[in-house]
Structures are given as C-alpha cells and as structure tokens.
C-alpha cells in the first residue's frame, strides 16, 4: 500500500533541479509582449484615449482600447462549474476592456509590442481623458442611500443578501439572566501572493485559439474564453503547465480572454501577457474583507441562548465569486457552535476596490476571525475557561447538517484540541501566563475551525480519469484535477498504484492538463482534489484491472476470479504464484497475432457527497507592549482530515496554510488611499507578507478518522490550515495583555492604538 506513506513527490527531482517548465519557460521567445493599461481613477468613464504618441514607439505592433471592443460579450469570471439554469449562473459583468471604470486599476487598453521595453514605453505615452464619478471604499457606506452606484442592476450596491433564521431569536433573548456579549470584528483585504504571478500566452492554429495559462481550472477557462470572445467553445484549447502557486487567485478567469483576443487581432501571432507583481495585487483578485457584527446571549452556565451575526463582505468592483464567500462563512456560524435561536444576515456589497475572489479558505478564515475572537470575548464576559467553554459548546459528535448531510462521525474537535494541547504544553503555559505585569508578556490562545471538502450539494460535480497501459506494464494517469504545487499528482499516483496493483514508479502522471486531451473536470478548488479524484481513480483503476485480468485469462486460461495484480505481476490467488509480469501481458496485448488489444480505461464519477473537516490552532506569543510587537513563539495546528495519503505532503500543506494564517493575523493588509482610491502598498516590500524570520517552527498534528463517504478515507486539507491561525494569535495576545484586537491584522499600528486606548502605553511627549 502506498496510500498512507510519505513517498517522494513525483515532481520532486524536476522541481529541485530547476528542470520543471512553468508557463513562461514554455513560451517561445518570438512572442509579442502584451501589457494592460489600467485606469488611474477609482470610478468613472473613459471619454477618450489618445494612442498617437504611443503608436510611434518602435516595436509597437498594436494598441487596442476599450472603444475597439465592438461586440460586448459580458462574461463571468468565477471558477465555478457552469450552470445550465440561468438563475444559478455566475454574474456576467466583465468585459475584456471597459469604458466604464469601477476601480483604480480597471483594464481600459492594451499594448502589443515586440518586446517589454517597447510595450512599457508605449503604455507610458497613452493619454486618457476621464469623466470622474465619486467613489466609495467602505462596505457599509456603499450600502447607504445616495452612495455612488457601481452596477445598475444592484441597488445600494448589494450584490446579494441572504438570511438564516433558526428558532425565535427575539423571544429567546427575553430569557431572564442572560449576559449579552457584542462585538465588531473585521478582516482586511489581503492577497494570495503566489510566487508565480499570473501569466498566459495565446496563439492561433487554423481557426482555433490555444491559450497556455497559469490556471487552476483549465476546463472552466475554456468555457469562459469562448463566452468572452463569442466563439464556439470547441475552438478554444487551454493548456495548463506546472504552477508556481494559485491559492484561489487562479480559480478565476483573469487575462486569458484578453490575451486570446490580442492574438486574434494580430493575425493569430503568439502573444504573451505576463502580469507584474504590482498589477497582480491590484488587477487579479483579493480576499474579501468582511466586517462582522456578532451578538451573543449567554446563560450564566456558559451555554448559548441566542446568537446573531451580520456580515458585510466587500466584493470590490466586480462580482467574481460574489456572495459564495460570505455565504459560506455565514453558514458556518450556526454549525460551529450550534444554538437553537440564530439570526444571520449576510451581505455582499460592491465597492470601488480591487475585485475580491476565491482565496484559500473561501470565507472561513474571515468567519473564524470573527467567531473565534468573539468566543474569547464571551469567555471573558463569563469569567469562563477558553477550553472548557469550547468543549461545552462546539459541534458535538453525531451532528448532521440538514443541507449538506455532512456528519461529524467522531469526537474530532476534542481529539484535535487534546493533541494540539499536548504538542504545545498548553495547560501549563495557560496557567503560567495568567495575570502578568511588565512590558513584555506571554500568552497562549486557541481557535477552532470547521470546513467542507467539496461543493455538493450546491452543484453536482464529476471527476473523470483515464489510464492507458504501456508495453512495460506502466500506465499513464490523467485526471482533470490539477497539480498547483500542493502535491496532488503524487497523491493521485499513490492511489492509482494501490488500486491497480503496480509499483509506484509504474504510474506516469500526466501533470499537464490540455482541454483537447484531458478528460473533463473542473480543476483545483475547494479542498477537493484528493477527495474527488479519488473516486474516479478508484473506479477507473478497477476498470483497467478488470480489462487486464480479462486478457490474463486469455493468456493463462486461469479463471479471472483466481487472478489478481500484485506489485506489477499477474498473480494466481490460490497459490500466490506469479504467472507473468504486467509488462509481458501488455506487450502481448499490443502485438499479439491472434488477439491484439489496446488496454485503456476511462470513466467519470459523479460526486454526490461532501465531508466535514475539522481542526484547531494553538498559538503562543510574546508581546513587547512598548514596542507594539508580537513575536509568535510557538504554533500548532491539529487537523482531522481523514486518512492521509501522504503524511509528509500533508504536513507541508499545513505549514503553508499556517504561514498564510500568520500573515493574516499579524501583518498583511492591502491599503487604499482614501482620497483617490489608489492602492498604496501593492508590492512585496510595502505589503507585509511574513518572512521566515517571522515564523517559529510550525507544528502540524493529525487525527486520522477515516471519512466514510470517501474513496480513500480522505477529506479536505488544502484550505483548512489557513482558517484558525489568525484568531488563535489574536486570542494569545488577549491572554497576554487583556487587549483584544478586533480588526486584523494585529500589527504594530493596531496594537499601538489598542494599547494606548487600554492605557498600557502612555504618551511620552
């Protein structure tokens, strides 16, 4: 069995030797270079674009402006499966270039040139006249009557408002003796900061257009490029090479349609569009900033009587993934701490900011920041213990969600908490750090999270797999689920080797997805790659095995039910004798003079299930109060992600997610100029992504309760590690200082304000 073993990544050697080819490595150097001209106002209309000076730059091939877009095919960008029901389709509000500008950085023109320097010089010389409108950056101000309107179809800029009503909140709060705890908790706009910026290139062959793109979702990109260009989807071919990270930003259609169009406008010439880091921050996607208002009514015995959440999610200028993000967080609210009387109102609202889309955790990091910060405030109001309160109120074993039918099969929360506490020596430190004084204080805090795995029952997804047997008994494995750095290809190879019965090296994973060749599937998103591909790999592997054994019967005359494939050999079950190698069989099959077969298998599996994933973070900090600084001393995540296919890769996944959580909690924040709407820190110097030196050793622990709905006992792990880190750090700071920072991140600026307000630091002037 390979499942459960920490085998080496199938792409390890190529990646560490630099042999792996990413999109830019693959692009021929004769490509034209495309650059996009972005608006320098936050809201308004382009009146004129003067390209005359820019066109004189030697090397400029073509300049295209928003006024050249004669046929306006509005398209959606979210990397969701398409819905054939128009009422469930994503909002189609984007154009490749737009006259109506809705954020500082909107796409209004593009230059195609022979090299980067000519393209940059031309961009610099284009003159634009605008009609400027007032703009709005604050999510709640955008909802006010009279606020600048971004999209006509959405009054008060509200893209969507959903509600959850359980029991009777108003009646429940009349219960005598209740303690009311209320707070506002907000998360900032942050960005994915994958190492490889978004890049794609396009060229034509015949009447078809090929786009090679750094995307998580090739089959979805194909559909949207077809929609955006108004051409038949079959004329579009998308190729997805190795990725230098995506984290959800590349679960969106970014510049693929524009790049394809620019190629079509230059005679089908090869055109490359490589987005600089500064533009990746502003013009691709961000994480939704969400402002949450929570009211809890708690009984003196430490149980909830009624709870209420209002969430205001800042969508930025276009719909992208829209309300799905805020709705997911809102949906978690009544489930994580079940309570009979709950009111939830979730709003997703347009503002004149960069477009928010999918990002690792899809609304749950924001929701956990709010819910787990608030939990700590409730604990404080009750004089309760953070651990005891959670044990008392968290989702219990046996809980079933009415909508998804997801079930908590084991006592996962307590198991995860126990393991994390042991790893970090929680109980000793919690006691030791109570009631400190002095400038430098330590604290320890916790937070939990809840997560789904796939998308069912919001949509029915399928996974397809193809296996093709070679002469030497090895086989190619193709799935539409994409390797984006997370190690999916390795997990797929492990599962496939086990199902078919071959050594791991006999599985050749075709890492590149090409929509002309790769079986259909919707790509890497949610935390579903291993879960959904597991079904189709298992089903297809069994099909391949059946065909192999059928042929083995022809060759050996042994009944199929007495045959098996073990370690790449055809084995007789009754005595364990090796009858022939799979290679001998495959060679026979291809070159036989009497019964020649090309042994392959392909199948599609419909995924009509989903699975809960759970876990927690415990963080230990040292706060230097006068310096307004937090040092993270220790941090541990513990996950119940079901059975791990590859524990070493699972640990690496958790480390990456924890790192993202550390930045979210302590330092990251995209800032906009209130006067102009211009993003101020859209580079890796001013945007404070945390560095190695800001990290302690990251500890990852696991509880492996097998998931019964899953082909290999697995459930989500990709996104969960990023969900609970930030509030655990916030709660540790609270434990150390008694000061709760409700607006993430707990950076020096916010700590200075909070400590000044709490009287912990004094004005020295």
């Amino acid at each position: 069995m390979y499942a459960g073993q920490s085998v080496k990544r199938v792409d390890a050697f190529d990646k560490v030797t630099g042999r792996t080819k990413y999109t830019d490595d693959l692009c021929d150097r004769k490509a034209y270079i495309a650059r996009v001209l972005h608006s320098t106002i936050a809201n308004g209309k382009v009146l004129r674009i003067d390209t005359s000076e820019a066109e004189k730059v030697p090397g400029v091939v073509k300049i295209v402006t928003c006024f050249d877009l004669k046929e306006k095919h509005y398209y959606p960008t979210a990397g969701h499966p398409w819905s054939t029901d128009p009422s469930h389709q994503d909002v189609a509000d984007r154009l490749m270039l737009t006259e109506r500008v809705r954020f500082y950085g909107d796409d209004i023109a593009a230059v195609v040139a022979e090299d980067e320097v000519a393209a940059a010089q031309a961009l610099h010389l284009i003159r634009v006249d605008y009609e400027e409108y007032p703009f709005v950056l604050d999510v709640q101000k955008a909802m006010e009557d009279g606020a600048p309107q971004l999209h006509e179809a959405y009054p008060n800029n509200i893209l969507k408002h959903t509600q959850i009503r359980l029991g009777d909140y108003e009646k429940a709060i009349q219960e005598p003796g209740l303690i009311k705890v209320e707070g506002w908790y907000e998360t900032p706009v942050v960005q994915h900061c994958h190492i490889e910026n978004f890049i794609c290139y396009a060229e034509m062959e015949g009447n078809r257009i090929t786009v090679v793109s750094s995307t998580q979702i090739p089959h979805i990109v194909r559909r949207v490029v077809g929609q955006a260009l108004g051409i038949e989807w079959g004329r579009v071919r998308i190729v997805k090479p190795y990725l230098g990270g995506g984290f959800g930003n590349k679960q969106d259609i970014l510049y693929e349609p524009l790049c394809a169009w620019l190629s079509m406008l230059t005679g089908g010439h090869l055109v490359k569009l490589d987005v600089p880091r500064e533009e990746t921050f502003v013009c691709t996607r961000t994480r939704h900033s969400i402002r949450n208002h929570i009211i809890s009514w708690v009984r003196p015995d430490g149980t909830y009587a009624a709870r209420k959440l209002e969430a205001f999610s800042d969508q930025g200028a276009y719909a992208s993934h829209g309300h799905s993000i805020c709705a997911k967080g809102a949906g978690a609210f009544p489930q994580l701490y079940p309570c009979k009387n709950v009111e939830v109102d979730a709003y997703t609202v347009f503002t004149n900011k960069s477009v928010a889309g999918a990002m690792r955790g899809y609304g749950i990091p924001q929701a956990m920041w709010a819910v787990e910060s608030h939990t700590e405030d409730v604990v404080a109001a009750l004089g309760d213990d953070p651990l005891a309160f959670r044990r008392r109120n968290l989702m219990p074993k046996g809980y079933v969600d009415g909508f998804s039918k997801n079930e908590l099969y084991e006592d996962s929360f307590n198991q995860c908490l126990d393991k994390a506490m042991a790893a970090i020596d929680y109980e000793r430190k919690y006691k030791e750090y109570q009631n400190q004084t002095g400038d430098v204080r330590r604290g320890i805090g916790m937070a939990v999270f809840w997560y789904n795995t796939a998308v069912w029952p919001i949509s029915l997804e399928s996974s397809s797999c193809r296996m093709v047997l070679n002469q030497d008994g090895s086989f190619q494995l193709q799935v539409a689920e994409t390797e984006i750095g997370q190690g999916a290809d390795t997990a797929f190879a492990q599962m496939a080797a086990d199902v078919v019965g071959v050594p791991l090296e006999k599985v050749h994973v075709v890492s590149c997805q090409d929509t002309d060749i790769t079986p259909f599937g919707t790509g890497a998103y949610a935390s579903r790659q291993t879960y959904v591909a597991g079904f189709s790999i298992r089903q297809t592997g069994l099909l391949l095995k059946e065909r192999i054994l059928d042929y083995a019967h022809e060759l050996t005359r042994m009944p199929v039910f007495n045959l098996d494939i073990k370690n790449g050999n055809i084995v007789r079950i009754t005595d364990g004798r090796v009858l022939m190698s799979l290679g001998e069989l495959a060679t026979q099959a291809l070159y036989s003079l009497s019964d020649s077969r090309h042994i392959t298998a392909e199948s599609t599996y419909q995924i009509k299930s989903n699975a809960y994933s759970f876990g927690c973070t415990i963080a230990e900090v040292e706060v230097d109060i006068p310096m307004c600084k937090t040092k993270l001393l220790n941090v541990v995540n513990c996950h119940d992600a079901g059975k791990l296919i590859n524990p070493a890769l699972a640990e690496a996944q958790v480390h990456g997610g924890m790192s993202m959580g550390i930045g979210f909690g302590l330092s990251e924040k995209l800032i906009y100029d209130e006067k102009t709407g211009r993003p101020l820190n859209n580079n890796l110097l001013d945007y404070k992504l945390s560095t190695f030196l800001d990290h302690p050793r990251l500890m990852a622990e696991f509880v492996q309760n097998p998931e019964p709905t899953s082909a290999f006992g697995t459930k989500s792990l990709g996104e969960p590690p990023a969900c609970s880190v930030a509030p655990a750090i916030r709660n540790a700071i609270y434990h150390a200082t008694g000061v709760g920072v409700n607006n993430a991140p707990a950076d020096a600026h916010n700590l200075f304000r909070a400590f000044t307000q709490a009287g912990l630091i004094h004005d020295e002037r």
Partner: protein
Amino acid sequence: MYDIKALYEAESVEDAIRLLQEHPQAQIIAGGSDVLVQIREGKRAGVELVSIYGIDALRGVCYDEEGAIRIGSLTSFSHIAADPIIREQIPVLGEAVSLVGGPQIRNIGTIGGNTCNGVTSADSASTLFAWDAIVELTGPEGIRHLPIREFYIKAGVVDLKPAEVQTAILIPKSSYEGYFGNYIKYAMREAMDIANLGCSVNVALSEDRKVIRDARIAYGVAGPVPMRTPSAEALAKGQELSEETIGKVARAVLQDIHPRDSWRAAKAFREHIAVEIAKRALRQSILLGGGVIRE
C-alpha cells in the same frame, strides 16, 4: 528586460571619472539593488549607466595611516558584517548592515550605494551619522572629504559633484575609540523590510564608568535625511547612569526629530517608538561599555 540605453564598465576610479565626463547624463551603478529597481519602476527609463562594480580597489576594510577605519565604497554589507576590523572596533555597523533586506541584497548591496542613494531609511546611514563618518569623494579635481552630515543635502540628494565617485567612508579614530554602540531597526517584519524608524546610539563612559562622558544619537526616517539629536546629546553629557537619565534623554529626542505622518506609520506612533528605541539603544550601549544602570 530593462530599459537601459547603454552600459559603460569602468576598470578604475580614473576610468570611471573619464566615463562620467564623457557621458554627463549617466547614472553610476554599483550593486544595482536600488538603481535596477528604479529602472524597473520606469523612474530612470532609457538611462545610461556607468558601472563601477568591477573596481576591486574600492572593496575592503583597513586602517589608514591615522588609524581611521577606511571602508571602500564597494564593500558589500555581508563583507562589512564579517570583517574583523569592523567586528573589533565598531561591531554596531556590522549589526546594522546585517539588517538590510535579505541575504542576496546584502551580498550585492554596497555601503557606497546605500549612502549615495540619499534615503533616510538606509540602515548604514544612521550608524555612520552616529560615528561622525567622513565621506571620501574622488573627482576630476581630486579628492575631497566631507562629514557625512554635510554629504546629505535633502531626500534622495547627496553632495556628489559631476563626474565624482564616492570612493570610501572613514571612521576617525577619535570617533570610535572608547565608544560603544547599538542600533535598533524598527520595521514591520524581521527581514526584507525597510525601517519605519532606526536609531543608532553610541556612548563613551567616564573612566570610572559612572557617568556618560559623551553620547551620540542618530536617527533614520525621523526626517527627510538621517539626523542627529543635539538636544538629547547635550542633555546626556555628564549624566549618571540611571533609568531616569535614560528616560530623560530618550524623551529629549522629540525636540530634535520630526518624523512624517504617512500611511506607512502615523507620526504619533513613530514618536512613541522613537523614544522607546532610544531608551533601549542607550541602555544597551551603556551596558556594552561596562556601565551599571541604577533603577
């Protein structure tokens, strides 16, 4: 791909001066960790460059005949941090330049570039201000020496005349003998960052180590160029070693500095931090000098 019109590589200081005279619009480039970034941003698009990076005579640290520490302008940050003379006499400079960017930047970046760039946040600059460093400039007219405080004219502008090259930075013996220093960089993360505020202090104690004989306090990012704090320094002279002295002197820096209010950090916040890091750097410098601080 960078928008560079021409690159001329100098083989010696004389060669560099000649090239700069022949191409008066040209920009000097050494390690390039600032200049290339500016070109990429489009600020110097189409620039002509004279590279001095190949002039090995400008690398290294030694004593000159008067006992001053002479640091060649092309000496990299990682070289300075590891250099035995620096470690023995002015270890604080090695510590300060070890806080620049990351390892790659410290290998390519030079102390000459760091100072000629004229920015207030340069990690070497406040420490060089504290040590009363002398800048050596070589041009068509010969060599001239300038106190570093006069070298900085305003934000981004230094006193570098046409065809002149900065060739060394000198720390006079009288500046370092008997002094102990500490630098605190205040930034938002532990690496790959530019200071929101930097404070470099050095202190000389009396022979009995009971009082402060002299204190020099310098700041980066407390104004448009690095600066010293004359009021606080005057106050420190002759004071006993106590927490009270440290607090009083640290608070006095607010009479001298004028940090900006910007989105990178609010003025009130920077002032608070300025006092706090002055306290800590003073305390550490006194301890390094063998002083005992009364509570």
